[in-house]
């Protein structure tokens, strides 16, 4: 990140070094000595440089037009390039036209990153990794556009010099890479949000951890505002009335769900007829702020059509949340034991199905013939993509693409981005039926 906007202290070595002001220097050094000599002792080049120095355009044109490569279509107007009295230094950033047009339309562009990390350029919705281009070229900048002079039709027009100013130099060239389809900053985002999780017992909340609002998160996370919002949607994170985000701890969610299930079992609530007031009655005000009820209705329920502010709890969501609560504490357990526990926890009438485990748990056969269940919720898996793949391959050797996909929904912005990553970075094998299985990282 520090590489941006900081001028390098020492100039880089180059293959070709050119010395500017050379002609003037030659003049300064040579002319006084030559004045005493006869003019025919001057070399042709010296005569040319002298003419250029003295702005004798006609003579310069006359000499050059008889020499290659100036002997064809040589314009009578020549342009002298001179540095401005105080030429400034700038950094150049190579961007796609789409990014430039967003900037021109008054959208903000922001470079984000920690001093020791790579930087990203963010628009409001997207982020692009940035890199410094190491190049042996010199880039000079002119405020005026330079173009070939329009030739006068009259061939007898006199040769002339026009003078143009070089206003600035470039000291570094940056380039934005292809737009990132992976939410790389999610790890940092989760670390920040975990600093002060919301606990059920109010006294446990008085920790020193910082609570972050969107503007704080944007300072520390290398993601655009929209990307942070998308990432937060996948997490148990609630925006409080003060604009700060709070992560609901596993314990907290466990308490919420157990009170909810209890109310459902006691017929105080029904799955299909849920609203703010009813939830307010079962969840204590001291532990559950209103924002969490709104969050629950928005994320875990669907609004009933044509019935005002009534909602239906999504059964699959509730069951998956309960599986998480059971499995988070144990991480791995015998499937029979798990069934016994979950049957006790589930509200009356609800049955667990295989689809409830997708992207949440995997099964493993043990030597004694019993099946065990392993907790693999993306929320608690490693956030670095390669680490997450490694972790999954330690659980099982062979995976099909669709089996892996649910474990990466939080990291990839699109299905295509995930498919592309698999093809580029994973080893695969074929079985006897020519089915493709991924078996490790390249």
């Amino acid at each position, binding site marked *: 990140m520090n590489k941006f906007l900081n001028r390098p202290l020492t100039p880089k070595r*180059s293959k070709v070094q050119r010395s*500017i002001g*050379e002609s003037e220097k030659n003049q300064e050094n040579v002319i006084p000595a030559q004045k005493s000599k006869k003019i025919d002792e001057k070399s042709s080049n010296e005569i040319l440089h002298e003419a250029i120095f003295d702005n004798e355009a006609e003579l310069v044109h006359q*000499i050059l037009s008889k020499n290659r490569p100036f002997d064809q279509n040589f314009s009578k107007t020549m342009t002298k390039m001179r540095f401005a009295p105080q030429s400034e230094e700038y*950094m150049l950033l190579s961007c796609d*036209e789409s990014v430039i047009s967003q900037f021109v339309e008054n959208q903000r562009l922001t470079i984000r990153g920690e001093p020791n990390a790579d930087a990203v350029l963010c628009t409001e919705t997207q982020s692009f990794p940035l890199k410094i281009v190491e190049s042996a*070229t010199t880039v000079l900048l*002119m405020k005026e556009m330079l173009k070939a002079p329009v030739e006068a039709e009259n061939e007898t027009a006199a040769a002339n010099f026009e003078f143009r100013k070089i206003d600035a130099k470039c000291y570094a060239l940056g380039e934005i890479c292809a737009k990132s389809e992976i939410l790389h900053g999610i790890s940092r985002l989760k670390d920040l949000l975990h600093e002060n999780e919301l606990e059920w017992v109010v006294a446990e909340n008085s920790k020193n951890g910082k609570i972050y609002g969107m503007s704080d998160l944007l300072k520390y996370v290398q993601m655009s505002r929209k990307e942070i919002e998308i990432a937060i949607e996948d997490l148990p994170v609630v925006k409080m009335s003060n604009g700060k985000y709070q992560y609901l701890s596993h314990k907290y969610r466990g308490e919420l769900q157990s009170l909810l299930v209890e109310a459902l079992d006691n017929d105080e609530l029904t799955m299909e007829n849920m609203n703010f007031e009813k939830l307010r009655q079962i969840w204590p005000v001291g532990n559950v702020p209103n924002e969490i009820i709104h969050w629950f209705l928005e994320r875990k329920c669907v609004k009933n059509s044509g019935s005002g502010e009534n909602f239906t709890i999504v059964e699959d969501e509730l069951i998956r949340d309960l599986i998480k609560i059971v499995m988070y504490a144990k991480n791995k357990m015998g499937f029979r034991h798990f069934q016994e526990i979950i049957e006790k926890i589930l509200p009356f009438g609800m049955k667990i199905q295989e689809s409830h485990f997708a992207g949440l748990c995997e099964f493993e056969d043990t030597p004694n013939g019993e099946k065990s269940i392993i907790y693999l919720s993306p929320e608690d898996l490693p956030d670095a993509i390669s680490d997450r793949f490694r972790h999954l391959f330690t659980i099982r050797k062979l995976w099909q693409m669709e089996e892996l996909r649910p474990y990466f929904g939080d990291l990839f912005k699109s299905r295509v981005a995930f498919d592309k990553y698999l093809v580029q970075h994973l080893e695969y094998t074929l079985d006897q039926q020519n089915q493709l299985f991924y078996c490790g990282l390249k």
Partner: protein
Amino acid sequence: MQIQLIPNENGVKEWMAIELHGTITPQNGEFDEKTLGTICWCGKSVFMIIGNQTLEGKITKIDRPLLVLHKSQNPEDVMIPDEKIARVEAIVRQKLIFKIRPRPLVISATSVPVQ
């Protein structure tokens, strides 16, 4: 840390770039008011004479435009901690590029008029 890119208060104009291979070094350490060279226009070709070398180039449109960034020196811009401002002074969409190796400038004695 964030660096906000904001447009220059006088608007973002279009500038032009000149790209040369290698580095240029002023003889006494200063570029100010030094002459870089003389551009000669020959049809679609552009030649620049720098000392006793001739560079051949052409004006091209840049595929990916360049934002010209300038670190803000305005004290009001750097009041917010962890946040800096860089002004976008201009956009470069065209450049005069000299990418062919420089050739020596050879002037035949017969081309110089007898004085």
